[in-house]
């Protein structure tokens, strides 16, 4: 492992900060559990929703629109993943290679154009 330490070195920081992140999130929760006084009564335990009575189940049905947005996000997320190494290698590329990347973007721009014209980007 330590023969190629230069590669793992970058990740040791992540390994250090990951527990710190978990602790930072866990300490307030646990502290509140330990320190906070608990005298529950039915009114306190009821769900607070802008002061009015809650209606229906906690697990409500989502609108399909959410899925459409998530879908568009996924596709362009993958596009970003493809373009990232291309952009990193930009200085070593010849002109036709850059144009191939541009073609990649243009093909997906057609998809974006379609989505836009179909009105899927608007919230109804």
């Amino acid at each position: 492992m330590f023969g190629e330490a230069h590669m793992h070195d970058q990740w040791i920081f992540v390994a250090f900060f990951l527990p710190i992140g978990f602790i930072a999130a866990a300490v307030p929760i646990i502290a509140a559990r330990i320190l906070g006084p608990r005298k529950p009564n039915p009114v306190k335990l009821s769900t607070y929703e802008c002061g009015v009575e809650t209606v229906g189940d906690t697990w409500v049905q989502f609108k399909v629109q959410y899925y459409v947005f998530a879908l568009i996000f996924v596709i362009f997320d993958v596009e970003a993943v493809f373009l990232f190494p291309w952009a990193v290698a930009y200085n070593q590329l010849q002109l036709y290679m850059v144009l191939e990347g541009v073609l990649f973007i243009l093909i997906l721009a057609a998809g974006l154009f379609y989505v836009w014209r179909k009105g899927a980007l608007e919230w109804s």
Partner: protein
Amino acid sequence: MIPLSWYLIVAAAIFCIGIYGVLARKNAVGILMGIELMLNAVILNLVAFWRYLTPSLIGGQAFAVIVFAVAASEAAVGLALIISIYRRHSTVVADEINMLKW
């Protein structure tokens, strides 16, 4: 040092768990989760073989990136199909989706 076979065994385990999920789950979304597990095991295999056998060729990583794109497209289309079927027939149970059966 970690032998290559360890990675392969872990990948095989994840793949088989995914197969169980695909075969046994009733809910179509659950089946899709099993497929995602299987694809992830495949990518793990690809990367492990790249690292141990041909690290000087970048092809293994390029292959893995393409598989990522295919996995994303598959999830997007598969879930869209499930949502569409749910809206028309109010079911996500794979056994009840039998419109094409005789």
